[in-house]
């Protein structure tokens, strides 16, 4: 058994010299014991290995990089694992390229853990300013997972070159005096300063930059695991920020809802203007223009039809064709004040097939309805009608987000996708088309409208 004693936990050079000699003598990994900083006589009469200068041999550069990282890992087996890989590299120099090899994978994973720990140290060290002999000094307390303090010191030297600083850790402390690095034994948290007045300002920043309208706790803890929190001043705020977030967001939404009132007309006109240039689906290519909704913005009932027809497309107004006239007549008979209703369509462009000179209506499909739902949502959030009426299957699909059967749903209130109250009945154009029981169907339609009118009165 050979015993190699390395100077410290991150002693890459010591490992490299020993491993080179051992490999030249073809000593198998099982016959080497690696130890760190141990007094030699601990090992009794076993021969302590002294590396000798042998002929150099080369290893691929990626291996050196891998080994430099792995050496810092806290796993005591790391020296031996690296040596095993080194021997295999001598036999097969391209072993490292076989990323599916279990040993390569294990070492790659260890290297990755070390690199991550080093990166987190760059990120989460928090200096505190203290007045010491010879001027201002910046001192941090940090608890790394691996043996990275020596290897990581260079980063802080490059960044804080003109400052005096110390980073204390349980295992090893590092100091910079603007000229040279020095190391001292590990410390405890009590050795580090317990505060810095600027931390309150930093916490103010942390709390203010947080957007309460989006809370993604998992995304936060994935990158900033809780084990680091205890040494970061700002994390003390996380709990209260999350707890207050929902309340803050609902307050904002509530305020903007109640504020709309006087400004609704401006907002509606702006939305309508934007809709004129809509290209959310391909239908904008066929129609003459976008046909937006129409009516008072304090309407008590919102009627949603299917899509503009031939006449609506040319006029740019909803429900002006035969179906609209039929709706007007039915509303009068049902005792509903037409001028107090808002009328619009689930799809705002005319979809048709050209047959000779005639433009034949075509039913919009589900994606077209979905694309256009954005506009209905805008209209509904501005008008907020107590009752919305879906005229026909297309409108119902838009309001409920799924296909529904009109026959099964008409005559009573339902909850729409956005939580508002919605009723369902047939589209007036159905009454124009239907052959059998025309009168009865019309009467049922009027009856539906009447019931809706009564409902709105009851809600007032």
């Amino acid at each position, binding site marked *: 058994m050979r015993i190699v004693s390395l100077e410290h936990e991150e002693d890459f050079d010591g490992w490299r010299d020993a491993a080179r000699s051992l490999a030249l003598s073809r000593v198998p990994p099982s016959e080497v014991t690696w130890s760190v900083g141990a007094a030699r006589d601990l090992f009794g009469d076993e021969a302590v290995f002294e590396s000798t200068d042998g002929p150099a041999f080369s290893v691929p550069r990626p291996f050196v990089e891998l080994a430099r990282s792995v050496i810092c890992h806290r796993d005591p087996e790391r020296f031996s694992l690296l040596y095993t890989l080194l021997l295999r590299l001598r036999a097969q120099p391209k072993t490292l390229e076989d990323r599916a090899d279990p040993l390569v994978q294990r070492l790659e994973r260890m290297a990755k853990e070390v690199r991550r720990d080093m990166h987190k140290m760059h990120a989460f060290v928090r200096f505190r300013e203290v007045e010491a002999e010879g001027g201002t000094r910046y001192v941090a307390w940090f608890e790394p997972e691996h043996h990275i303090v020596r290897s990581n010191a260079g980063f802080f030297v*490059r960044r804080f070159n003109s400052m005096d600083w110390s980073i204390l850790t349980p295992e090893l402390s590092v100091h910079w005096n603007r000229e040279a690095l020095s190391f001292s034994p590990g410390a405890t948290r009590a050795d580090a300063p317990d505060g810095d007045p600027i931390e309150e300002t930093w916490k103010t920043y942390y709390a203010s930059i947080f957007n309460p309208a989006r809370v993604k706790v998992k995304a936060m803890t994935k990158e900033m695991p809780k084990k680091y929190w205890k040494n970061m001043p700002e994390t003390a705020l996380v709990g209260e920020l999350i707890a207050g977030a929902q309340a803050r967001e609902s307050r904002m939404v509530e305020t903007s809802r109640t504020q709309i009132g006087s400004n609704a007309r401006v907002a509606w006109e702006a939305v309508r203007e934007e809709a004129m240039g*809509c290209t959310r689906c391909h239908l904008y290519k066929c129609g003459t223009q976008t046909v937006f909704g129409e009516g008072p913005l304090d309407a008590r009932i919102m009627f949603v039809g299917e899509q503009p027809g031939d006449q609506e497309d040319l006029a740019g107004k909803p429900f002006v064709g035969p179906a609209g006239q039929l709706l007007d007549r039915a509303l009068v008979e049902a005792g509903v004040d037409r001028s107090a209703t808002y009328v619009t369509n689930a799809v705002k462009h005319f979809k048709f097939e050209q047959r000779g000179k005639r433009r034949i209506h075509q039913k919009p499909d589900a994606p077209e309805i979905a*694309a256009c739902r954005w506009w209905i949502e805008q209209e509904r959030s501005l008008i907020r009608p107590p009752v919305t009426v879906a005229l026909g299957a297309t409108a119902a699909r838009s309001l409920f987000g799924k296909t529904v059967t009109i026959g099964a749903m008409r005559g009573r209130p339902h909850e729409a996708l956005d939580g508002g109250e919605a009723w369902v009945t047939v589209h007036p154009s159905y009454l124009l088309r239907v052959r059998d029981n025309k009168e009865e169907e019309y009467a049922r339609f009027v009856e539906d409208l009447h019931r809706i009118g009564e409902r709105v009165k009851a809600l007032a």
Partner: protein
Amino acid sequence: MAQLDTRQKLAILADAAKYDASCASSGTAKRDGVGGKGIGSTEGMGICHAYAPDGRCISLLKILLTNSCIFDCHYCINRKSSNVRRARFTAEEVVQLTLAFYKRNYIEGLFLSSGIIRSSNYTMEQLVEVARSLREDHDFRGYIHLKTIPDADPELVHKAGLHADRVSINVELPTERGLKRLAPQKDGARIEGAMKGMKSAIEEGKDAKQRFKSAPSFAPAGQSTQMIVGADSASDGEIVTTASRLYDRFALRRVYYSAFSPIPDASAVLPLQRPPLMREHRLYQSDWLMRFYGFKPAEVVQAADADGMLPLDIDPKLAWALKFREHFPVDINRAPREVLLRIPGLGVKAVDRIVTSRRWRRLSLDDVARLTVSVAKVRPFIVAEGWRPTLLTDRADLKQRLKPKTEQLELFAA
């Protein structure tokens, strides 16, 4: 008005800056503080020094110089007609705050933007002064990102580029019709004109640097932009198309998407509902597909549903693969890299590992499992040694099988 102290101002001016999504501190030239009077270094990869509960990284001190503004953009909390409390930092205050935070290792540097006061030029001068003072008076070598004002004098914008690592101009909204409604005083053509000017300034700077070593570097981390998602009617397809046009025309490093979120004292012209946060995530994924996976913008648009929106329940790469199943299964041991990149569940790193490893052995499904995060998602789309998905690739319920199980939802994920 009572005098505000630095902390009160910071609270207001950080709050006002938080709707800017970008906090990146990466991609700039390497620098360090060795041999200087000041502090600071940049080492290529950015560092996130903390994370806020909104899941966003805190890398830079991101603040506005002032939140007063002569513009009245509806989506913006700082618009002229808003009732928010106003504050203004002096250039010196920002400089001192940046240095104090930097010395304690809280930040990588400064991201400074501003509401527009008096005039575009006046505002731009103030921003440049902060950067100049940090660099020249304090020899600060950390990261600086300056937001530039589209209408400012080109000479001032040029100065910004000399001090800053990155400069950015926000396009604000993905469509011209949205810009017209929500930011009626802004002009899409002028914004793009400014981005074009910046692009040539960056190119000239790079060119000069190549010929003369002593030439000053000009915005070495390039330019980026941001657009707000969900405030106007743009569909994902339109957004992706706009983004790719911006990447092509202005050589942008990044296009950031910021899901519109309700702001206090909102203008009534804004939608009240916010888009699901997942939408922003899917857009970033599609951005990645174009930048690193060789997808063309039109192909990303194909991954969207017929209503132009990317599916929220599955990622766009999986959505594309499910739509174009004729491209699968792919033989993991033979297919070229660009074809491997199309396999759902395989990232760029996994693909590179596969490409090097397969020179040494024929990869089995177990090998692939070791090279990637989860083989379950990959399996139906590949052929490996001893593995053929037989009917799996053609199953109608494949989406259901691959869709992530509904996990515990993030607090407000819509």
